[in-house]
């Protein structure tokens, strides 16, 4: 019995002990405060104005359609599409024979008229002597004078006719007025061509220009002589600079103004007909302010909304307020600051007021931050 009692007592005791041990196992763990780290962007890059890209086609500055001054039959075409020609080179010829015949005829005419002139002159001389001795009548004298004048006139006329025909004869040869490349030869040999009909299209390679259509919203910002940057979508590495040389006074199709940009240099592979992208830089709206650029992700929209009690309008136009969190390395906290911002540039936004170079703006996870929060700067590892 004793043993039984003893056993029972020890059993109960050990059970109680186990329960106590179980209770002791549950210890609470203290938590130290963990300071969050934030990704910051150091303000330094300045806004250089707004950029707009408009595309256009490359043309040769000098591009002419050449034609014979006269009609005729084309007897020879000395060049073809793509040929390079020098200034003064003979390009095509018309059949000379008809023109030669006409010249011969005119020469003959001239000779005949000259002979007439001599005859009239002789008559005048005779009649003039007779008139001086009162042997001829005034009437006859006048008639002879008139005849002489007429003969002179006829000679002149034939002379100029002959000159004209000689000029025509010259025009049967088509000469290159400048050096360049033959773009098109829309004729065939032995084709009858009218005067001023297109014979050869020639363009110079050296000077290139680009015509773009600038919308009315931007046209006021464009000035003569404005420097622009030109890139070519099909030639990746090439870029050139150009100058605005002509601004149209009236809109063309698509209510845009034609603007011509001359390329300052020809960067080699660019040929007329290619597509070009012209980037216009507008700076005037900046006046003399310096604007800094910060990533768009730094704008703490939520903080701005919560702060304002009365938000009836939700549109953010240019030159508006936008809040960001600035990291104060002296206090090791982040601070909400309101900035005056402007327009977008790439994926960044212009800041007019509120930031100085060297300021550190939090650029990620701003939706989760609070004004006055303790923080440290995050340095990415590997």
């Amino acid at each position, binding site marked *: 019995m004793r043993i039984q009692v003893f056993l029972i007592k020890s059993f109960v005791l050990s059970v109680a002990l186990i329960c106590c041990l179980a209770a002791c196992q549950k210890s609470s763990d203290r938590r130290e405060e963990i300071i969050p780290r934030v990704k910051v962007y150091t303000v330094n890059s300045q806004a250089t104005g707004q950029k707009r890209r408009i595309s256009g086609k490359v043309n040769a500055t000098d591009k002419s359609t050449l034609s014979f001054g006269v009609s005729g039959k084309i007897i020879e075409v000395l060049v073809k599409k793509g040929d390079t020609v020098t200034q003064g080179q003979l390009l095509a010829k018309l059949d000379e024979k008809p023109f030669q015949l006409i010249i011969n005829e005119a020469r003959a005419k001239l000779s005949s008229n000259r002979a007439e002139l001599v005859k009239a002159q002789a008559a005048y001389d005779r009649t003039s002597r007779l008139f001086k001795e009162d042997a001829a009548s005034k009437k006859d004298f006048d008639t002879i004078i008139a005849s002489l004048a007429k003969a002179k006139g006829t000679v002149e006329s034939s002379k100029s006719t002959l000159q004209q025909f000689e000029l025509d004869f010259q025009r049967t040869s088509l000469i290159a007025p400048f050096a360049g490349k033959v773009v098109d030869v829309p004729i065939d040999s032995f084709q009858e061509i009218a005067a001023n009909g297109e014979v050869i299209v020639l363009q110079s390679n050296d000077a290139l220009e680009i015509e773009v259509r600038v919308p009315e919203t931007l046209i006021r910002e464009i000035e003569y002589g404005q420097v622009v940057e030109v890139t070519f979508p099909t030639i990746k590495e090439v870029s050139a600079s150009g100058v605005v040389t002509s601004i149209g006074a009236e809109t063309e199709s*698509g209510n845009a103004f034609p603007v011509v940009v001359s390329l300052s240099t020809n960067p080699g592979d660019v040929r007329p007909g290619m597509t070009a992208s012209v980037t216009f830089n507008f700076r005037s709206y900046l006046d003399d302010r310096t604007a800094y650029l910060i990533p768009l992700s730094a704008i703490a929209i939520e903080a701005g909304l919560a702060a304002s009690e009365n938000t009836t309008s939700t549109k953010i136009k240019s030159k508006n307020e936008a809040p960001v969190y600035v990291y104060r390395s002296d206090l090791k906290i982040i601070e909400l600051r309101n900035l005056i911002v402007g327009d977008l540039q790439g994926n960044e936004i212009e800041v007019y007021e509120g930031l100085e170079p060297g300021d550190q703006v939090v650029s990620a996870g701003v939706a989760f931050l609070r004004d006055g929060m303790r923080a440290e700067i995050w340095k990415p590892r590997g």
Partner: protein
Amino acid sequence: MNRLTHFAIKNARFTWLIIVALVLGGVSVFLAQPRQEDPEITLRSAQVVTRFPGLSPERIEQLISRPIEDAVKTISEIEKIKSISMTGLSIVAPEVKSQYTDMAPIWADLRNKMEDLKSQLPDGAIGPQVNDDYGRVAVVTLALNGKEFSLSELYSVSKDVRDELNALPLVARVDLFGVQPERIWIEFDPAFMAQFGLDPTEIVNALQRQNVILPGGVVEAAGSNIVIEPSGDFQSVDDIRKVAIDAGDGQTVYLEDLANIRRGYASPPQAPAFYNNQPAIVLGVSMVEKSNVVELGHQVKESLRKINLTLPLGMNLDVAIFQPDLVQESVSNATENLLQTVFVVLVVVMLTLGLRAGIIVGAMVPLTMLATLIGMSIWGIELHRVSIAAIIVALGLLVDNGVVIAEDIKKRFDHGVDRLEAVLATVNTLAIPLLTSSLTTVAAFTPLMLITGGSGEFLISLGQVLSLALLTSWLIAITIVPAFCFWFFPHNVPQDVSTEKNTKDETVEYNLGFYKVYKRGLLFVLRRRVLFVVLMFALLLSSTYVFKFIKQRSLGPSERNQFVVYLDLPAESSMTQTLYVTNRLSRFLIDKEKNPEVMNALAYVGTGGPRFFLSLAPNDAQPNKAFLVVNTERSDQIKQVMAKVERFIIEEIPEASGRADILFLGKSPLGTLELLIKGDDINKLRQLASKVKDAFYEVPGVVSVRNDWENAVLKLSVDVDQERARRAGVTSEEISRTLSAYFDGIQVTTYREGELSIPVSLRASSESRATLDRVRSVEVLSTVHNVPVPLTQVADFYGQVEPSKIKRIDQVRAVTISGKHPEMTSLEFYKLIKSKLDEIQLQDNYSLEVSGEIKDSEDSNKDLFRYAPHALFAILVLLVLQFNSFRRPAIILLTIPLVLIGANYGLLLFRGYFDFTAMLGLFSLAGIIINNGIVLIDRIDQGRDEGLDVDQAIVVAAIERARPIIMTTVTTVVGLIPLALFGGEFWYGMAIVIMCGLGVGSVLTLGFVPVIYSLLFAFRSNKNVEASSNADSLSIGNSV
């Protein structure tokens, strides 16, 4: 009643046959029983998804979400309607009232209503589509990965693996996650195209018109039918490259000269998945309902062995999450617990009753268990967390009946009564009271079984198993136990029948140290009855005061060795950014130096992946969210790894906010306080949300404060000036189409390769899409003038702020603010900030209420207490039936509050949480503690019937019944020790409550019941009490 006993003893062979049948049947049932981790819960919610690409959240809300909500409201079975409206997407989630279990007709009704609604939604809306099938749990999660393999190669292998696994009989379905659909991309430079005078439309037309498979007809030639097939459709990517586009002037240009054509994947990526930071295809395997998950585990393992042999070198099929192993472990844990409990109970019984009695009563335990298992199988209860715990709790209880019977029989034997007579007499006296006490315990559990809804389905097996166990134990206690006692108890030399000697022996026996102390204490207390009652009352009051210091929560967390991480980026973040950030976190997680405890980590970006844990709904499918599942080697390492992860997120991931959560059973995350703000105006809601957040931040150390509407986002509005547009010759439609083709890409046609259908999409080259600025430079081809028109010419641009999503609950806009404190429960946290919250001024039509874990607790407690009065009444009826008196049941019911004393102090001492399971423990205690009272009062009445006066009867009964009462208490208490120590967080509260509540309560009952009985029935003064106490005459032999 003793006829049954008589029968059992007489027909010994038959009884033995029944016993053997029980054993064999029970064991075979156990082996075959379906088992899973958690009970099946009917998911009472579905999703109605509608898309309208490009529409802003507010317009989606007005035009789509609200009409759908109104239509859903007309279905009477719907209890709650939640909705989310985001850019281009509307999700309406109705929840069905908890009393409905058959969801099929309700969803059919929903589908019909949505079909009818289609015509009222704006043109261009895709849907509404009803999705009611996302409650499937993936019991096994596999990850197919390989560094040197492309995603499309992984995809084709994964399809074979899926087919292989689908063939297994127990597998219901295999879903694939992380699959990246292939795309053929045609990327053009818009400036270049515009100069050609080409519009994307012309390319689209050229591609579509060439890539056709249309029948060319059939030629009937000399009696044979010969099919004609014109070619044209794309046979290879090169065919696409060589498509000729008419550029005007009779010129044609090839597509490859206009654009870059390449074969790739959908961009941005669609819901990629990663395993240990490697891109992977994740397979979620789900099981056929009501089967044995452990069996499925074996089948899958076997299948995996075969599959692994066929995988190419370098490709791995890793097992990420394997529920069958967890279930196996918990079942074997439970069996261990069971054996431990059986052993302990045996020891206790043997110590008090002696070896033989101990063995007999001990044998009762497995028999009852096996009978219960058979009953469970008939009733359709599977083996899972809840039913196993119920078995463990039942162990301590079911011994009681046998102990009382055996003890009484032994006493009679010791007094020399004829064996058969003694056995029958015991059964006669005790059968009904024991039945009453068993039935009252069952009645105490009935409120549990009547809870509707998910929590009801989860816990119903608790009541079912306990009822089965108690009733079978009663049956066995009145048949088999007496039979065993009759057959196996040692034949005592009958004691001398002389009463004196008997009395002396009695006195000797009852004069043991313990009984002496008890008797003295009882007499002492009976003299100061009123004082004692007052003392009890004071103890009770003090325990209710002590309750304030006990931590509360809704439910314990899961014991799995895994936790989840949520990573949220600002609402406007792109998938690429989220991928980048998730990649950094993954790398940290699998770094063996920093995190040696981590076994593997799954990451899902832009989705929540498969549902691998029943009560964890998958994460939102948004490009700015990532979800990770991390498995550690052991579950005790979870806390420290979670702390490390949260620290890493705060320090090393500035772009995101995140949190690590342990898996929880229940609807809301544990420890998180959720507050709900309802109202109408979005700006006002935003301000209120900000004030609530400020209140949260007042408490230092708070973490993870978030707003479920996330942050407002910037939208770029392109305001087309119609005048300028007309002059330029472009229309809004052309502008939209060009913009969409430029940035998003438009699907042009489909490239068919083998069994794959790969969409061919047209989009601007990546440099052209790189900056926001480029939108202004986009050129739209004016079909009127045939020139490209830059967008700035015809439109103005401005930024607009709008909410990224709008959520509604029950047709009112609602914002949920949540946050947690690592050192406090959600209730403690709430109490701390309540004063600050009350300061917030709310206008009419705006409300602030508590939701989340706290509300869930309230709701489940309400459910529990709904039927408590009914249960109490049932108990009362049973008691009145038993005693045919009102005073006696009153005494017994008065003992119920005593359990609180032990329960509260116990929880405080052992640092348990008062959670839902602890509440359940209290309910069960109510049923158990009254058993002591029943047994005592029954004996007192008996004594009075024999002629003793009240006080004498009281003392006699108390001393006689002290041993069985203490024994049954000790067996229950000790039987729960394994559950308390090894059963995990989920059951700790319940175990402590029952153990301490019962332990202390029983001791108090031994004093309280006599005192109250004496108060209610006796009119004696004190000295008579003292006199009669010396006459310990008991004439037990005469009782019938």
